[in-house]
């Protein structure tokens, strides 16, 4: 018995030492589902000897976790580009990106510029683009005819639609009502009035909502079982459903899809910046970026992925986004402070309304 204890203690000691040694070559990433494919992690380990530890999250949780620790616990985060400056100003959870350590040639210049413009605070840039995509409508064309956000409220779709009670829904409905919420970002009073109007419209639309979805699988299953006929949803989710059932299609709304860009950002108290930069340069290589695209289905900010990309996805993209639709995408500008509070109250009211 004693021997076994001794052995166990020895094992514990060894793992302890092992853990201490490995800490210097470990990269802790907090990111979205499928953003860090396991096979790339294995290749990265082979090439650099660095272990990657992935924590799955979403924008709000990511920011809340970093806020709780003052930016510690992770070495790399992947928030959306519009959620960086306000968060940095408020909570100081990121550190600036040293562009000299990044192979900028691997990034598409246009996306790099958008992110630079939206993620600069006091002359320092806090983010690099990683993946982008759009929010629009997913429709089971056999049951429903939907061409714009407000069509979700048509009477024949009673109890057959789904939405996510977060800010993209407010933006989509605002554009659908012919307004431009982004233009009102600088005028709190006018923005509040617009949000109240959008909230009233969403409350009136509530009988049409089957459920407000909170995770991807809930919504996908809603479509698969036929319980949901139309939803406000992201593009690749729609294309994924389309491969399973050709009746289900991603529809770019007439008033324009909403474009998001998810980024690389360095948490303020990350311990392994070198590994983070190594990962960024590794994962943005064209061949690797193409593997990310296959894993997540969204589009990469990397250049030269064309030859590696799945032709089916390319075809789906081209079908959904003719040139005019691509130009009509509304890209999220950085959110000024205070707006999210207004939006939050409107969303609460929608949720609680009967």
């Amino acid at each position: 018995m004693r021997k076994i204890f001794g052995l166990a203690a020895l094992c514990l000691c060894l793992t302890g030492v092992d853990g201490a040694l490995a800490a210097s070559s470990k990269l802790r990433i907090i990111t979205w589902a499928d953003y860090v494919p396991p096979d790339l992690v294995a290749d990265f380990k082979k090439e650099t000897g660095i272990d990657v530890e992935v924590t799955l999250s979403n924008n709000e949780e990511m920011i809340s976790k970093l806020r709780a620790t003052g930016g510690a616990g992770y070495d790399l985060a992947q928030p959306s580009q519009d959620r960086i400056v306000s968060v940095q100003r408020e909570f100081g959870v990121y550190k600036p990106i040293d562009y000299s350590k990044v192979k900028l040639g691997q990034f598409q210049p246009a996306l790099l510029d958008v992110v630079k413009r939206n993620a600069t605070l006091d002359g320092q840039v806090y983010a690099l683009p990683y993946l982008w995509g759009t929010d629009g409508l997913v429709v089971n064309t056999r049951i429903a005819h939907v061409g714009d956000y407000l069509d979700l409220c048509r009477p024949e779709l009673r109890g057959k639609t789904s939405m996510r009670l977060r800010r993209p829904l407010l933006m989509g409905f605002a554009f659908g009502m012919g307004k431009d919420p982004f233009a009102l970002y600088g005028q709190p009073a006018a923005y509040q009035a617009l949000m109240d109007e959008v909230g009233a419209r969403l409350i009136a639309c509530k009988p049409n909502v089957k459920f407000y979805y909170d995770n991807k699988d809930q919504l996908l299953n809603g479509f698969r079982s036929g319980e949901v006929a139309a939803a406000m949803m992201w593009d690749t989710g729609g294309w994924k459903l389309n491969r399973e059932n050709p009746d289900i299609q991603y529809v770019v709304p007439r008033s324009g899809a909403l474009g998001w860009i998810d980024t690389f950002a360095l948490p303020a108290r990350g311990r392994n910046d070198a590994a983070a930069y190594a990962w960024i340069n590794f994962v943005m290589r064209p061949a690797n970026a193409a593997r990310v695209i296959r894993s997540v289905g969204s589009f990469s900010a990397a250049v030269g992925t064309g030859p590696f990309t799945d032709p089916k996805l390319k075809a789906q993209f081209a079908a959904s986004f003719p040139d005019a639709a691509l130009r009509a995408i509304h890209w999220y500008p950085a959110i000024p402070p205070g707006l999210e509070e207004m939006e939050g109250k409107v969303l609460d009211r929608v949720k609680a309304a009967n």
Partner: protein
Amino acid sequence: MAERATGRIGAGIGLALLLAPALLWITLLIVLPHVDLAILSFRERVGARQYAPSLAQYATFFREPLYWHVFLRTAVMSVLATALTLLVSFPIAWVIAKIARGRSGSFLFVACLVPFWVSETVRTLGWMILLRQSGVLPALLVRLGLTAAPPELLYHDATILLGLVYTSMLFMLIPLVSSLESLDDSLIEAAYDLGAGGGTILRTIVVPHAAPGITAGCIIVFMLTLGNYLTPTLLGGKNSQWFTEQIYTQFITRFNWEQGAAFGFLLLALSTALVILGLRATGQRFGEVMQRS
């Protein structure tokens, strides 16, 4: 004399050492975080990274009808769920304690316990599979010809109540069974001999004897229900709002820790107030209830 003193000191040290883990637990994991939250709840953001002491968070709660509506709704539904749990559990507890004694009694008890071997998430998802429109129960109703189209049984307030009662039944059963077991059968026999009916026996003998168990079960179930997050969120419909959900939203999606902390304290106040009220109404004392059950 000196020896005795050292003995007493030794006993004191022993007691301190024995209590240390519990005290450390309470101070580090319960008292300190609550103090921190209390400080948070009494401040207000006045600018980027600037905060000033204020009562604004509590004022918001009372000014915004939405929040206290959700608050009251949560309270009423929790009381309802507790009452339902008691109604459902009492006959079961009676069967376990009085009718199916010995082997079959413990078998029934284990049968009630088995669902708790899987996590709450899995149990709740099980209900979703059973109740959703394309699920088992609606399909069965259509097959039996009771309805033409499969009805949506999920996403109603009644579904939330069902889930809550199901999750908390065990916590009502345990104190009930233990308090009913100690009831002497001869008392009931004597009552029958003296001509009392079933209702009178229940009212004058069984319930008064089981009162501490009933109260303890109700307190535990009520607190579990009020603080439940998972069941109302998963089973509740598009209109359902539970106060814990509101706290989560404030903390995580709105980054408004101050408001979330204030909501947390309001919920704590609510549960304390209702428990005290319940004890008063039934003429019981907290310490006694917890000791006897």
